């Protein structure tokens, strides 16, 4: 195993270098030339995306730093989309942040560090590195949530996020320490190997470790009953930051769940399989039912995210139960596809919210969307697509997310009555559809509340239009992304 493998960490290296550069250079850039930092960040993101893209078709799994860091096809796909999501978030953030004294170097540097944390988590093959990535991501996000110092709600959200995030990290760390104690190694492959070879000091510690790890992952995903922070943070954080939290970090949480549970603890699957199922069902119920009562769109999306993560966990838990590598790859591919389409739709929804916000006005109540169809039919359409996608109505990308998760779920031939789990899941999705189409209702069927013109910058318009088109194009021709996810998973699991 190589000591350092520069090729494997190329995207992260670029990202780290540019984040540091922006951090150092920005204080010397005058206020009116802030676009320099912005362009620099976007260029860096493009370079990172490109380097991920180049590695996309690699068959081999590369290790770096003595096996602490792994670059496999799954990691490349997730990193690519995390990178795109962060880029879109920065573009969407522009006009909002300019009007609220947030358009500073910190925003760019912290966003890039968040992404670096996300990418580290995605590629971490070692307990310590997972923790390192997690903390890097979380600390950057805590600071981002609190970026508007004069806004009490943001401060409160940051506090809550920090305290609960620290708790979650504690859970995860505690689980990791037990895992280390039981197996005597930090390397995930080695952990799996030692458990398989029954070289474990204490079996009970393993079970306990699994419980804590699942709880920690549940926190990070925002799955019920570890979801309390989600709505408050989504609601309180500045909208661009909420967008950032809702997109790339979900992919990281998925990757960590995959690395820890599937790669590290496959032999404990009997335990975590049911835990995840339980988390999934509780999340579906809590998320969808509570979202119905919300009037604030950000809060509603927060609650709905809980339900969405529940749905994703259904695929996650079924991968192991079906037995064969091929069907496991299908299941994890499905979960990955689900996370990506979820992020795509959420980006669109937050994007439209940011479009409507202007100086001194936060478009974040559902009623703020009133009559958007009459004011700007195209952006109303983009928002409608995002909502239909989250609801899982074809022809949008989200439908195929639901479809592949259901088909992964029904492949499960364990003792769990999966058909009924699937029925419960779709019934809660129906509840979900109610509040998603309510947003469409407000936009299309009600008269506009205010006629204030809003003007979007061209880069934002292009990004938002591309986002909307991506939702519908993937809804008609999902083959490419579906194939990408499942083949990446096949190669990851096979290699």
């Amino acid at each position: 195993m190589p000591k350092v493998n520069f090729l494997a960490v190329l995207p992260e290296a670029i990202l780290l270098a540019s984040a540091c550069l922006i951090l150092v250079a920005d204080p010397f850039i005058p206020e009116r030339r802030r676009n320099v930092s912005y362009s620099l960040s976007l260029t860096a993101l493009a370079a990172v995306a490109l380097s991920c893209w180049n590695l996309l078709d690699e068959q081999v799994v590369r290790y770096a730093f003595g096996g602490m860091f792994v670059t496999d096809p799954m990691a490349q796909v997730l990193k690519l989309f995390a990178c795109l999501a962060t880029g879109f978030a920065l573009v969407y953030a522009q006009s909002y942040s300019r009007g609220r004294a947030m358009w500073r170097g910190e925003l760019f540097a912290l966003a890039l560090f968040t992404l670096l944390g996300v990418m580290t988590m995605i590629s971490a093959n070692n307990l310590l590195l997972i923790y390192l990535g997690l903390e890097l991501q979380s600390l950057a996000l805590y600071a981002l949530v609190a970026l508007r110092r004069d806004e009490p709600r943001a401060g409160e959200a940051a506090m809550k996020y920090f305290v609960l995030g620290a708790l979650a990290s504690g859970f995860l760390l505690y689980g990791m320490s037990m895992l280390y104690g039981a197996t005597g190694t930090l390397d995930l492959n080695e952990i799996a190997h030692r458990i398989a070879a029954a070289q474990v000091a204490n079996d009970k510690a393993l079970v306990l470790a699994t419980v804590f790890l699942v709880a920690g992952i549940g926190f990070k995903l925002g799955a019920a009953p570890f979801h309390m922070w989600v709505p408050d943070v989504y609601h309180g954080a500045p909208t661009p930051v909420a967008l950032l939290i809702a997109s790339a970090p979900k992919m990281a949480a998925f990757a960590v769940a995959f690395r820890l549970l599937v790669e590290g603890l496959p032999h404990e699957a009997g335990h975590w399989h049911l835990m995840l199922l339980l988390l999934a069902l509780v999340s579906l119920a809590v998320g969808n039912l509570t979202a119905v009562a919300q009037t604030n769109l950000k809060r509603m999306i927060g609650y709905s995210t809980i339900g969405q993560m529940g749905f994703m966990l259904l695929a996650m838990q079924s991968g192991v139960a079906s037995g064969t590598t091929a069907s496991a790859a299908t299941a994890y591919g499905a979960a990955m596809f689900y996370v990506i389409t979820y992020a795509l739709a959420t980006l669109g929804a937050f994007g439209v919210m940011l479009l409507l916000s202007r100086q001194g006005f936060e478009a974040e109540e559902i009623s703020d969307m009133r009559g958007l169809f009459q004011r700007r039919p195209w952006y109303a359409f983009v928002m409608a697509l995002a909502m239909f996608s989250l609801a899982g109505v074809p022809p949008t990308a989200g439908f195929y997310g639901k479809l592949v998760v259901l088909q992964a779920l029904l492949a499960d031939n364990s003792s769990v009555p999966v058909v009924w789990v699937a029925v419960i899941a779709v019934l809660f999705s129906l509840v979900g559809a109610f509040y998603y189409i309510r947003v469409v209702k407000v936009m299309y069927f009600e008269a506009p509340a205010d006629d204030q013109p809003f003007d979007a910058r061209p880069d934002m318009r292009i990004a938002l239009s591309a986002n909307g088109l991506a939702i519908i194009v993937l809804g008609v021709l999902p083959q490419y992304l579906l194939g990408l996810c499942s083949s990446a998973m096949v190669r990851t699991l096979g290699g």
Partner: protein
Amino acid sequence: MNATYPWLSTAIWVPIAFGVFLLSAGRDRSADVVRAVALVGSLISMLVTLPIVTGFRLDHAGLQFEEQIAWIDSLNANYHLGVDGLSIWFVPLTAFITVIAVLAGWKAIRERVAQYYASFLILSGLLIGVFCAVDGLLFYVFFEATLIPMYVIIGVWGGPNRVYAAIKFFLYTLLGSFLFLVSLVFLYRSSAGSFDIFAWQRMPIGLSTQILLFLAFFAAFAVKVPMWPVHTWLPDAHVEAPTAGSVVLAAIMLKLGAYGFLRFSLPIAPDAAHHLAGFVIALSLIAVVYIGFVALVQTDMKKLVAYSSIAHMGFVTLGFFIFSPIGMEGAIAQMVSHGFVSGAMFLCIGVMYDRTHSRNIADYGGVVNTMPRFASLMMLFAMANCGLPATSGFVGEFMVILGAVQFDFWIGLAAASTLVLGAAYSLWMYKRVIFGQVANPVVAGLADADPRELLAMGLLADAVLAMGVYPRPLTDAMHASVGQLLVQVSHSKLPPGL
């Protein structure tokens, strides 16, 4: 006939392309241009369905005009289209009704005209897609996607209570569809990864699984038909929808549910279908008799026709579940006929509503005095609605009643009560609205139907009469496929050894 040209794809994508064009280029400033483009688009869309009718081979029970392209490799789903005797008529019917719908909204819609017509054209393409798709996933995508334009049509251009109606419509149908989705995925898993409907039809399935599948299908299709007791969304949706929305809803969208029974429930779960036939027949008879009475007491014309639609669709499901050729062909004939007749009835109500902005029967009376040409055409449709011989309504009802009497005399008798009830509610409404003295100044000031309205109604009248006088081509085309379906349904699919 050039069999290799993808006529079905053309029929699906031409209206959608026109719709997308209107959506992107149409503005309210140039509303007349938008209307003209929409009309041209719908006419072209109708023309491209003609080769499908003329090139259809009557002796062939299987798929015709088949197209198959790999669509989603990783799920083994194909873009697989084809029509057979069960679906052939719905393709031109949809295109035809879309032309009527475009004509119907010509003057009434003044705001966001482009989006309005775009919704109808896109809806038309999606509906044709449902009737042509023979891949389970493709069918589902088209089936579900039709919800979005209809939701928007009801919600944006509908009546005062449109929001409630639109959401109710959406959620009701979505509930059924989600269960349908689970069963599709289940079939996909049990057929070792295939979305081919015909593979599912051949696959042996145990009885209890079949019953669950049947019920899941039933949830989707019964809501769409709609069958009693899940029909309550329909009167709301019809009353609030704009005229053209009601026309498309009644004429085509309700057929999706009935068509689903033919394509999924009966051939995939035949044993369950036999098992639960009594249940479905009972629900159908309730729809025919009870909803017939409900229609009788309506004071709102649109509601009345909406309830009569439910009663007529009860005939369709009754015809399916007596498992005889005459019943099933009658049911399909009834579906086509109902497409014309209910569409025409809603159009007539729309013509009056555009002038008076009232749908209340009590607000009318003596319309014949001011709108004689309109009144005579509506007479024809009201007669067709109660199944008068020589109108299209007679063909299907007569065949279904015949089949029902063969099956069981008392069921036949109960079904035949529709002849009395249908006549009662249709003609009584007609009498109160059209005949008598001029009831009020509003009616006195009515202008007779203009050429555009006469054209729309005249086209429908021709169709109603043609089908009533000479239904042979209609039933001939479905003969082979219905025969094959009945053979399929009569063979048990239970796995051997059970």
